[in-house]
């Protein structure tokens, strides 16, 4: 087999981040020079990420800042936490826009929504509530499938398959007025009809994850 001429792999590096707290370039230059004077060898050729979170002026001259740093033999690889107009400037200057790990995590999550189905779900039909709960006012027939990233509530009889927490949410639950399911699953843990019958004596049911295994309890209906 031929070895591929390139490979794409993920790696993480520790980079120094330079926080710019003033729009006054001369002031920045002065302070930078005094810092560099302390340990010149350390900074020469060092890759830097410039944090611009304090700069809210959209007319800020990023190119001038870049020239300033380059003239001190610093290498800017990218900027972070910049306002949109500065990010645009950075793109034209060929700088990367880097999101710090923390920032990426705090990305606004899509709001959780609820999908409401007001009819019977028939054999062969499949309903998926992405990013939220699924509420069915009606019956889910044998051979039908209801799937949700969140919880599933069925105000009727569940005879088909129900899969809650489809993208891994272990707190999802499955609630049905009458539980006669072929299969129930929460975050990948599943039960077949026999398991449900073995664990339940009542018609209604709330199924949830208790640790790594499913449990069922009846509803006080």
């Amino acid at each position, binding site marked *: 087999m031929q070895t591929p001429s390139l490979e794409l792999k993920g790696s993480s590096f520790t980079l120094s981040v330079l926080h710019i707290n003033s729009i006054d370039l001369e002031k920045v230059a002065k302070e930078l020079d005094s810092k560099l004077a302390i340990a010149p060898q350390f900074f020469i050729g060092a890759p830097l990420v410039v944090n611009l979170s304090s700069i809210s002026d959209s007319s800020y001259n990023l190119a001038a800042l870049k020239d300033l740093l380059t003239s001190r033999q610093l290498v800017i690889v990218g900027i972070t936490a910049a306002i949109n107009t500065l990010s645009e400037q950075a793109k034209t200057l060929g700088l990367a826009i880097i999101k710090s790990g923390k920032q990426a995590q705090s990305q606004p999550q899509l709001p959780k929504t609820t999908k409401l189905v007001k*009819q*019977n*779900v*028939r*054999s*062969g*039909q499949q309903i998926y509530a992405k990013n939220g709960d699924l509420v069915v006012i*009606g*019956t889910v*027939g*044998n*051979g*039908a499938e209801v799937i949700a990233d969140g919880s599933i509530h069925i105000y009727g009889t569940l*005879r088909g398959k129900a899969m809650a927490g489809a993208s891994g949410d272990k707190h999802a639950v499955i609630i049905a007025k009458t539980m006669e399911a072929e299969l129930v699953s929460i975050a990948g843990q599943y039960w077949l009809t026999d398991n449900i019958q073995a664990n339940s004596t009542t018609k209604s049911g709330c199924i949830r994850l208790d640790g790594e295994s499913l449990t069922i309890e009846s509803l006080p209906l």
Partner: protein
Amino acid sequence: MTQIIVVTSGKGGVGKTTSSAAIATGLALKGHKTVVVDFDIGLRNLDLIMGCERRVVYDFVNVINGEANLNQALIKDKRCPNLFILPASQTRDKDALTKEGVGRVLDDLAKDFEFIICDSPAGIETGAMMALYFADIAIVTTNPEVSSVRDSDRILGMLQSKSKRAEESLEPVKEFLLLTRYSPSRVTTGEMLSVEDVEEILAIPLIGVIPESQAVLKASNSGVPVIMDQESDAGKAYSDSVDRLLGEELPLRFITEEKKGFLKRIFGS
């Protein structure tokens, strides 16, 4: 307004064609101008049940392809002046049906007829989809056993998602349950699902329960729709169903086991 009624089931052998013939004849006997269309291209049976197999010259596919006009293909029933049959082709297959073609023929029929009964083939392929696509009313024929009920549930799902009314977000197709080959004695012994069981699973209004009857086979073999045999319980049950389809409210008959009389119990039947 013409009503297009599809008689469908998903599963085969449950009595779609028998029911189509009976309901169409029943509507016609009530004075409504009715045509019954056989969608089972390649396995045409309706003409046999209706007793007009020797009069088939042109068929549904010929009309779709423009090889014949509707009047040439329609067969007038000999017993009932308001009833017409549009037979299927025996030599083609279901792919001969196209949405445009079927739509055009049904539009033409709607000019003359009050009721168009579409006798659907079994399955969920082209033929069955074409039969149910244009429907206003669906009569879901079901036997009281689990596989038939499951398949009916599937067809109900199709009606809700694949019909013209569903695609165009119009008022949904009216669905009715017709329970056929019902045997009260076998329900009592637990061998068969009861009316209540099936109603609970399918959750659509019941339009009739047709008892298992010798009269059905006899009627099929002699080419007379069983509804014409008003002596038989199946014939009577179909008449009731037709009345309910037309909006009458009637109590269900033939759903409880007939109590054998004292003498019958001693001497057998």
